[in-house]
């Protein structure tokens, strides 16, 4: 069975704490999800997303605070803007843009985090491995 690799950039104040809560509440979600903690979802550079796909990630998630709740006031707005631009461009060039997701999860939403990650992993599992942007010279 194909085991997808999902990279999640989770912001320190909300979504990472949410993931932590899922852990302490013993809510299971697949271990295909590898979480990278960033200070704010607005810190995520679209280059990192493309790099993750290049290194072989099958899905990438940017998780941040709900709009209005960002610890840095407007960081998640930048994240959403960049997400929209990158997603539109991915659609335009014919990449499977469903592999790229943006998630708002607060520090108290452990259950939501676990459910969303499980659903996303299953979706990527069905889609199969990501070959389009994976590095070819190896």
């Amino acid at each position, binding site marked *: 069975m194909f085991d997808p690799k999902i990279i999640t950039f989770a912001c320190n104040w909300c979504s990472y704490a949410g993931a932590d809560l899922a852990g302490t509440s013993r809510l299971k979600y697949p271990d295909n999800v590898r979480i990278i903690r960033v200070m704010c979802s607005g810190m995520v550079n679209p280059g990192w997303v493309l790099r993750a796909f*290049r290194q072989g990630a099958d899905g990438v998630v940017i998780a941040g605070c709900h709009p209005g709740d960002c610890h840095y006031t407007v960081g998640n707005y930048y994240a959403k803007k960049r997400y929209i*631009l990158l997603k539109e461009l991915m659609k335009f060039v*014919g990449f499977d843009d469903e592999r790229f997701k943006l998630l708002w999860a607060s520090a108290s939403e452990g259950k939501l985090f676990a459910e969303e990650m499980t659903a996303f992993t299953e979706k990527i599992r069905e889609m199969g491995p990501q070959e389009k942007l994976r590095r070819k010279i190896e």
Partner: protein
Amino acid sequence: MNSEILEKIKEECRKLPDDVSYIVGFVRKQGEPREILRVLRPGEIDRLSYSPLSSSNPSRIVMDLAKSGKVAVIAKGCDVRTLKQLEKEEKIKRERVYIIGVSCPGVIDYRKFRNAVKFRLSEIESVELVGDDVIVKANGNEQRIPFNELIFENCLYCEQPTPKDCDVLIGEPREGRTDFSDIEEFEKLDREERWKYWMDVFSKCIRCHACREVCPICYCEECLVDPSNLAVSPMTPAEEKAAYPRVLGKTVSASDNMVYHLMRVLHHAGRCAGCGECERACPMELPLLKLERKLKKVVYEVFNYSPDEEIPFLSKLDILPEV
């Protein structure tokens, strides 16, 4: 017609304010009808030239030169748009630039020109736009080619042929238009066809970085994709140098080239003026403007942003759509 424009340009250059130290304009290259940018002094006005092949964007040179003195520049609509964008980003002070605007009917695509003209490039004496035709003169002979067969394709979708903010304007004002029909046409293809098209395009890219170097708004010295100027000093420790974030190395393959171009274009969201320097500079003739224009379409339609606004696109946060 370009001899008239040239005369007017020279006339304006003779009337420049006294504090102008440099003029950035076009000079005809020796041996072919290309027009290349040159930095001239106010005493060298007779070297100036102008023709429908004067396509280069002088903003990059103006940005560097304006630090040392006041610059007069001969600029078309797209060039002034770029200057305004650079001014918005605080790279140029408007008082340091004296803009001689030229209302532009479009420029000639040099590649189409070389295929259509029957003379050898070194024989050509002049290229003039008269009415709807381009008249090429060489050795006493003449060739008439309809302008719409030679026009640079991007110019058909020009939004601002006449510079909006300039100190003097030469030529009659023209209407621009916002038209993304070529992008919409392309989006009708299905996903696999689009992927195949772009893979085919990017398999030709040789990652020479000409597109990035000629672009006036790609002015970052440390580019994430391939740093062109790494800020290291003798004190920088080895671990830091080794761990410098790199998205890509120099490996060249169709998917890596795609990552390079997507990264580059994403940083131009809301900033690209559509001057076409990237597509003209590319030695492998890639259709780079398609990506830039798609992003422009997203910025206009999804975000409702117009480049005439005072605030840069990436700073504007009150316009987030529900997507």
